[in-house]
């Protein structure tokens, strides 16, 4: 049992950490922008179960365009942060993969 937990925390997670983080960031982006599903389930009650994309729609329907675009700009900013994070994580993962391969070839040469 102990080995099982150790395997998880010391071997599996460190090996997949960049991929895992990449997945978390992507998932977060989707959740942040989700519209249809949230709209149906939450009932978008203001100040209680409203999300930013739904708030954009509410403001837009009230002809409060500047407020709607302000919220939309915030969401766009978050989307750009997501894209940058994704690129960095992708690069970090690729670099580590390349590093592993280098070590492998060196070991093979030594053998």
């Amino acid at each position, binding site marked *: 049992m102990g080995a099982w937990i150790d395997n998880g925390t010391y071997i599996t997670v460190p090996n997949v950490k960049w991929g895992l983080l990449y997945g978390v960031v*992507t998932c977060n*982006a989707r959740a*942040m*922008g*989700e*519209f*249809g599903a949230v*709209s*149906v389930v939450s009932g978008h009650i203001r100040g209680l179960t409203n999300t*930013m*994309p*739904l708030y*954009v*729609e509410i403001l*837009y329907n009230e002809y409060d365009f500047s407020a*709607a*675009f302000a919220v*939309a700009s915030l*969401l*766009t900013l978050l*989307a*750009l942060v*997501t*894209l940058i994070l*994704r690129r960095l994580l992708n690069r970090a993962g690729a670099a580590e993969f390349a590093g592993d391969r280098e070590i492998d070839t060196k070991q093979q040469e030594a053998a």
Partner: protein
Amino acid sequence: MVDLPFALPTSVAGIALTAIYSENGWLGHLAAPLGIRIAFTPLGVVVALAFIGLPFVVRTVQPVLADMEVELEEAAATLGASRRQTFMRVIAPALMPAAITGFALAFARALGEYGSVVFISGNMPMRSEVVPLLIMTKLEEFDYQGAAAIAIVMLIVSFTMLLLINLLQRWSTTRDALG
């Protein structure tokens, strides 16, 4: 930049596209003198869905295109093919499975797209309504049976699309293995 529609919340895409393509928007005012209205018409829905679906197609076709060897085109050229023939007879057939898969993915996404379309379509009854919006309207009218009936039809279509995409992907991988 291609991935922007993935990360961008759909309602942001919707509100921005509506602002750009409405009659006094950046692109809308160019189309207006030609008698083309984009926002609040079915054309607007097409524009929004193309924006949402584009990254699916790009991301599926791009790796295949990048893997393609230049020698293939050069061989076609030495055999006397023109640029057009090279594209039509050599490149396009090789890209076909990936392009169709990308299209199917984009189509599946477009089927359920709600956030972006709801802004740009103007939701005119029988003219620019999309199915998810119909479900929403039924729900707001407490017509749960109607909503469920539409939802089941959509569910069947979605499952069919999923099956089709899986088959297409299998087809494209076997083609890659052969080629």
